[in-house]
């Protein structure tokens, strides 16, 4: 009897371990608190106080990215980001970064498909200086033909450095170009050399007036500050920036439903062949995006993930293989990429990648994989909220991309509710052959070296 009950207990324990490992309450990260203000000119301000270190992070998001570019002007949003460092009424050209540096701070900016973000981290006492400088360039940018022409050369070097010179540097560009038909996510954020050359100073003026306006801006202030002081400062420097003359345009071409698998074969001067498989996926924040995120974890997070295990570890088909989902403001793509190991067959790699997506449709994922994905999500959630810069980025994403501030914290719980059925349903809905693009990029010259043992 006794023996049996111990056995029974062990079974129950095992069952609990396998099926019910809940995320313990202790592991629920602290709520990401915030205050949200809207100025009369439409600018949104998000505050989050963190007094652990006497520093503050200021991040200004303009809701404009490469998807807002006009045809023939790819790369313009990013190019414009560079021009924001070329001086304004009270700040000399090239001085923005060095002024921040002279007080020990760091400043930079980045542009992606949906947004252009200017950030600075500084010792807390210099908060007035940073707000004043950001307002200055929002209201009174200097636009100068000479600067415009010379800075374009820097952007072209950036394109050469990031995209054109390194092996596989063009990979992303080739993927999006072929996966989308009309949506501007088709084009690389950095743009093409031809389009960069075609840009004119009138484009600069027009872009500034259209998109660099308070109602298109969200200001994040995270760190060590006093709420009354910061509210006064924001009012003092930003409330005087007038509203734009016209509403911010939001007419982005819509990608039509794809009805047939697309196959592409290309050559590039790369050391190994690359195989890419993509599918169209929903926008970030769409209810289906959470199960999709679970699948991206199951497919590609860690050495246990299915793509790594199958293509890299078990078969050695690929040097590296990974899947990732774009999770953008508008519907994007899920792409899986594998670099074919010397001596292995690109056909086998393609089959193996597609098989992983098909398996999700027929068999879904296991309870354990679901729990693992949730645990990994919890870790990501925590480690992406350690620094004030990371917190600002989360807040900006919730406000600008998700358009739902509550998601900055609530997403944690939304995610934990994803079920096995959700995963299978979403796999069946999106991982369909009609929505698939398969691309092979072979080394130039054709002959693949063999290392046979």
């Amino acid at each position, binding site marked *: 009897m006794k023996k049996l009950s111990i056995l029974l207990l062990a079974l129950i324990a095992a069952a609990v371990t396998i099926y019910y490992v809940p995320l*313990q309450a*202790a*592991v629920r*990260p602290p709520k990401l608190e915030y205050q949200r203000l809207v100025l009369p000119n439409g600018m949104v301000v998000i505050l989050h106080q963190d007094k*652990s270190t*006497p520093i503050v992070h200021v991040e200004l998001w303009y809701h404009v990215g490469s998807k807002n570019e006009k045809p023939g002007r790819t790369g313009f949003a990013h190019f414009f980001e560079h021009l924001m460092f070329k*001086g*304004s*009424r009270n700040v*000399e050209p*090239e001085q923005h970064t*060095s*002024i921040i*540096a*002279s*007080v*020990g701070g760091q400043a930079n900016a980045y542009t992606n498909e949906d947004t252009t973000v200017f950030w600075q*981290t500084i*010792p*807390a*006492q210099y908060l*007035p*200086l940073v707000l004043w400088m950001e307002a*200055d360039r929002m*209201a*009174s*940018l*200097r636009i100068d033909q*000479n600067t415009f022409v010379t800075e374009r050369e*820097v*952007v*072209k*070097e950036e394109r*050469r*450095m990031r995209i054109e*010179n*390194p092996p*596989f540097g063009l990979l992303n560009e080739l993927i999006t170009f072929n996966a989308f038909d009309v949506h501007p996510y088709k084009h690389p954020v950095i743009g093409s050399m031809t389009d960069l050359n075609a840009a004119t100073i009138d484009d600069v*003026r027009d872009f500034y007036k259209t998109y660099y306006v308070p109602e298109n801006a969200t200001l994040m202030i995270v760190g060590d500050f006093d709420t009354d002081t910061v509210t006064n400062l924001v009012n003092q420097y930003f409330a005087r920036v*007038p509203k734009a003359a016209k509403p911010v345009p939001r007419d982005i071409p819509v990608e039509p439903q794809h009805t047939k698998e697309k196959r592409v074969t290309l050559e590039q001067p790369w*050391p190994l062949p690359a195989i890419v498989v993509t599918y169209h996926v929903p926008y970030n924040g769409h209810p289906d995006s959470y199960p999709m995120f679970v699948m991206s974890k199951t497919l590609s*997070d*860690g*050495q*246990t993930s299915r793509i790594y*295990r199958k293509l890299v*570890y078990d078969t*050695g088909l690929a*040097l590296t293989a990974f899947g990732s989902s774009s999770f953008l403001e508008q519907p994007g793509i899920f792409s899986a990429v594998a*670099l074919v*190991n*010397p001596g292995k067959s690109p056909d086998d790699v393609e089959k193996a990648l597609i098989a992983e997506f098909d398996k999700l449709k027929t068999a879904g994922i296991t309870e354990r994989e679901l*729990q*693992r994905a*949730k645990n990994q*999500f*919890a*870790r990501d959630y925590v480690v992406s*909220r*350690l620094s004030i810069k990371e917190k600002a980025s989360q807040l900006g994403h919730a406000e600008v991309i998700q358009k739902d501030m509550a998601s900055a914290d609530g997403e944690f719980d939304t995610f934990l509710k994803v079920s096995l059925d959700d995963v299978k349903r979403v796999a069946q809905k999106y991982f369909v052959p009609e929505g698939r693009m398969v691309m092979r990029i072979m080394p130039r010259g054709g002959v693949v070296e063999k290392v046979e043992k």
Partner: protein
Amino acid sequence: MTTKTVLALVLFGGLSGLVAATPTLTEKIRGEKPARTRSEVQQRVDWPRENPPRPLPARPVTFPPYELRKLANGMQVVLVSQNEQPVVSVRMIIRAGAAHDPKGKHGLAMLTATLLDQGAGTKTAEQIAETIDFIGGALGTGAGTDLSYVNAVVMKDSYDIALDLLADVVQRPTFAPEEIERQRQQALSALKVAAEDPESVADRVIDRLIYGFHPYGMPGAGTTESLTGLTRADFVDFHKKYFVPNNALIAVVGDIGAAEAMAGLEKHFGAWKPGEVPALAVTEPPDATRRVIVIDKKDAVQTEIRVGHIAIPRKHNDYEAIDQAVKILGGEGANRLQQVLRSQKQLTYGASADLDTFKWAGAVIAETDTQTSNTAEALRVVVDEFTRLQRERVSDGELEGAQDYMVGHFPLTIEVPDAIATQVLNQLFYELPVDELPKYRERVLRVTPDEIQRVARWFIRPSQLSIVLVGDADKFVNDLKGVGFGTFERIPIDRVDLLSVDLMKRQGATRP
């Protein structure tokens, strides 16, 4: 067990140059001439001409608390407790890296580190991966120049699981033959990709030029021959020699108290037996000698440029002054190279100079990239800046600017607990006094323009520079003579051999 608690010291708030810096700041903002001519200011409103606002009162900056301890077997322990997020990271350092690769066994430290978590204790590679992934943790291993590392990040309730894994991985790796083969193939493929990456080739060749056949000049990622030749006995031997507690440092960082952290370490690492670590016989690196290597890559659209020479090891009396001199040349907060190459001449997206300082030696290396046709011009500018730094005294204002950045930046370097631990680990690793940490401000401000001039005179050697250019050689080599570099060695990228004296693979012959 020895216990030593280091108290946090207050670093006085405010900035040295604050009084002096305010007019400088205004100057930078207003510019010298009040009126602009050519450029148009896109005003949305009658935007006022005004001075920048004054700073708010500063709060004092303190180096956060941490504790130093030691296990009886000699393992050094750093504890940093901070409970903002429910996460714990454990970081372990072993004092042996690529520099400890025996002759002809290049890549041994790197592959040993890679294999640590591919089977250990009673667990297979798959079981280790499954354990860490399931709890939503992350485990990473690797080797650097002087050290190997194993890091784990877990939610705080998984601390014991993390230590259990780390203990196996560090103390009892399996080195299973099939895992060795798998990782060897991966390393060989990675080598193939790196051999065609201009950036990676430039970095490897400049190290080899500067350090010669000193361990720091050798390829830590191995060569095809060396990786192919490594046997299981090599991994077992390397591990046995260096992976002992008296050769290890560990930091436990995050949402965990000292008592719990130590109890876990005692449980999982207390029984680890110390061993005698063989001293590494290291020769001096060669003297700086002028040498120019052009690596030809036909399809390149840019040239990767590296310029440098030998400098100092991390533990050196002139470290602070030399570090600041190099920051003025190409570091954060100053950076003459970026100013001239990007801001003035638009020749590049980025230019910088680094002072790499390791245990036994170090180097100053400037790097940039530029489109092929501008290669010679960019090279000339870089070399001119070395010369200028050596010949001309740095102005008070320029040094003040560099120091303002360093001092002002300090609170940004102690924000997250891992960054605090890194600073403490660095001091311990290089055998520098930890009580220097809270005195950062004083250390920085002690350096004067005279000091910079004194060190620049002996350590910057513009006529003995090693230079590497990786790009489409036919399109720029004819310009090199015009900038004073008419003598160079040219090597096709597929014939680079880091182990031969002339860096060139013999055609038709294999090296022994």
